[in-house]
């Protein structure tokens, strides 16, 4: 702030305070005549307007606010470039807050960092911290209950696209994951009927009872040989491949919907799933605690 604006602000603030004080003093005094009459001299229909000195309690409050403002301006910034005796600013207050919490939490995180991810989830304090990290960073996609949503995996079950080991979870969070299933309609024949057959076959993998329907049984028979192109990623037995993030198709867990239409859409259009990387978004210590929390979501019965 330049010298000019500093002086300008100080002048207005001081003038304002002085003006208030003078206004108060001027109105404090009454002419002897006024004091004698106790009225303003107005009279309407025999009703007179009284003229009394300012009530004492109100006067003291007013003086009190003036004194308060003087003390405030001495201690806190308000007079141009003068920063106040306390040297307070919202930025330094924020820095102090951050530093204080950093200092308090550092030993805690250091302690957590010594414990491997697959054991840390048994520490109640780590679970609390992890839960908050999860709520702020993961819940918008995976849900506040971590049960996921269509297109966003459930983290509380034992089904893992990229593996459920402590290392795999930490890697998923830190580095992110890119899941890509290409459109497959052309590769399996390209016709609507071929897509429908394949969808029925894939659906029947986790619902063997479906083949009791002769229509479905026929569709399965037609689609089965074509599954070879799917098997490249999902495996001959359709149980998936965690190295590629190709889901297990036999377990009845459907990331992109279990309905026949959903499966057809997946086959027709493919799917692109992107788990963003969190390296640099959160510190390594926090990623460690977060991974432990996520690990604990499906391992809580071990306690």
């Amino acid at each position, binding site marked *: 702030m330049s010298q000019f604006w500093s002086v300008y602000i100080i002048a207005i603030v001081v*003038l304002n305070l002085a003006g208030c004080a003078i206004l108060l003093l001027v109105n404090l005094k009454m002419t002897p005549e006024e004091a004698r009459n106790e009225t303003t001299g107005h009279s309407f229909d025999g009703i007179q307007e009284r003229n009394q000195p300012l009530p004492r309690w109100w006067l003291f409050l007013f003086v009190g606010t003036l004194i308060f403002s003087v003390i405030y301006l001495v201690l806190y910034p308000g007079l141009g470039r003068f920063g106040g005796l306390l040297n307070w600013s919202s930025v330094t207050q924020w820095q102090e807050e*951050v530093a204080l919490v950093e200092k308090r939490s550092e030993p805690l995180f250091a302690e957590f960092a010594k414990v491997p991810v697959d054991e840390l989830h048994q520490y109640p304090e780590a679970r609390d911290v992890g839960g908050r990290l999860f709520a702020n960073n993961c819940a918008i*996609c995976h849900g506040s209950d971590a049960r996921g949503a269509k*297109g966003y995996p459930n983290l509380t079950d034992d089904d893992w696209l990229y593996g459920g080991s402590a290392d795999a979870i930490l890697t998923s969070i830190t580095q*992110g994951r890119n899941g890509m299933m290409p459109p497959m309609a052309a590769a399996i024949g390209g016709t609507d009927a071929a897509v429908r057959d394949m969808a029925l076959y894939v659906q029947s993998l986790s619902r063997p009872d479906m083949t009791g329907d002769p229509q479905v049984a026929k569709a399965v028979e037609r689609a089965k040989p074509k599954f070879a192109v799917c098997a490249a990623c999902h495996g001959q037995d359709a149980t998936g491949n965690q190295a590629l993030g190709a889901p297990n198709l036999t377990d009845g867990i459907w990331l992109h919907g279990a309905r026949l239409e959903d499966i057809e859409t997946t086959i027709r259009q493919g799917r*692109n799933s992107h788990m963003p990387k*969190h390296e640099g*978004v959160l510190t390594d210590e926090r990623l460690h605690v977060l991974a432990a929390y996520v690990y604990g979501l499906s391992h809580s019965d071990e306690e």
Partner: protein
Amino acid sequence: MANYHSVIEKNVGLMIVLTLVAVSFGGLAEIVPLFWQKATTEPMATLRPYSALEMAGRDVYIREGCHVCHTQMVRPLRAETERFGPYSVAGEDVWEHPFLWGSKRTGPDLDRVGLRPITEQWHREHLRDPRQVVPESNMPAYPWLAENTVDWSHMERTLKVFKNQFGVPYSDQDIDEQMNKVRGEWADATEEDAVVAYLLSLGQARREER
């Protein structure tokens, strides 16, 4: 001593003038100096002007009233910087006309939403049906954004107004470039494309501090 207040009380014109003088002190001391402070008039070095698509998204954002529930103002409080990202400073909003700071949070602050690791796909699903991805959300759905194409008819003029009236440093070449994209790759862009582009642009000036 003369009875000044009775003079003022009996003279409405004088009273109006003195009232205006009295109420102007706060503004004169707190607001007027900011018009000449570098902290409020100079853009941050890392700030870049909106693309035409982001600008269109911003217009849709205003039209749909997003700013009524979402602030774009992270206060210098630890809880807020922990949750959202670096606190907001005036230099980020020099080119904002109108600014969208807001004053009430029904939803979360969005000033740093472009810095969060949220995918474009998530934003689209969330705009179409917020409860699909966040079951406890009370945000309304905006499915029509995906169906409406952007109304580009005023964009060239908008960019020129921002350049000439608001001092946003678009060069004539920048505007030509943006308008070529508007006629080309963005010609059929939906309002959802525009809003998502705008959301992803929020906070980019502060990327290095995250």
